[in-house]
């Protein structure tokens, strides 16, 4: 079961994980991105994620298909939140299962790195000082 989805509501990690079940799999690696209370030395209160949904879905699916080709995996599932998130909320969930842990770790890391580079989703941080700003993939501020 391989899929990429967007969710406007909190991600249910337990449901996502069920998609990875496979009697041939010996290793499962899950990455979760959580909203942190700090970034680049500033106190963060809240985040908004905005997505260009049709392209985000097709890019996300393409990334998962590429991972299935590159790595010896059993299953992959990934979901990214959109909308407003509070500190501690899950922003992204990426799960893979594989026969061996080498492939599982390598694929997991590759998928989240490539999601962050290619999928059209933007993060807007709201800071304690009342300011907010759109961020780059490296979490530095964007000048529009």
């Amino acid at each position: 079961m391989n899929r990429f989805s967007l969710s406007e509501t909190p991600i249910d990690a337990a449901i996502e994980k069920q998609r990875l079940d496979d009697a041939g799999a010996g290793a499962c690696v899950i990455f979760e991105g959580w909203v942190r209370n700090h970034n680049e030395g500033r106190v963060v209160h809240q985040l908004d994620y905005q997505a260009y949904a049709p392209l985000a879905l097709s890019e996300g699916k393409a990334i998962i298909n590429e991972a299935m080709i590159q790595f010896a995996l059993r299953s992959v599932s990934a979901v990214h939140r959109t909308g407003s998130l509070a500190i501690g909320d899950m922003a992204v969930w990426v799960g893979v299962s594989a026969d061996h842990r080498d492939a599982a770790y390598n694929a997991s890391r590759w998928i989240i790195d490539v999601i962050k580079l290619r999928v059209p989703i933007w993060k807007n941080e709201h800071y304690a000082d009342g300011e907010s700003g759109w961020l780059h993939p490296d979490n530095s501020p964007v000048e529009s």
Partner: protein
Amino acid sequence: MKVKLLYFASLADRAGRTEESVETHTSDPATLYDDVRQRHGFSLGKERVRVAVNGQIVDWNHPLNEGDEIVFLPPVSGG
């Protein structure tokens, strides 16, 4: 011809809108971005922007057609 532009994130903030319809005589996204950039005062150069037409990432010289939905994508920051 008439095309539809969608704006996201920092470009939407700078443009003050999330979409607009424009009449254009340009036949490729590169020239269209130069126009739009000047009009809205975007500081991001093309080297830091990607372009999507009708939901697909395309090259800057991709031919444009009447009714296309065009999105200039600022650097993404998901995850």
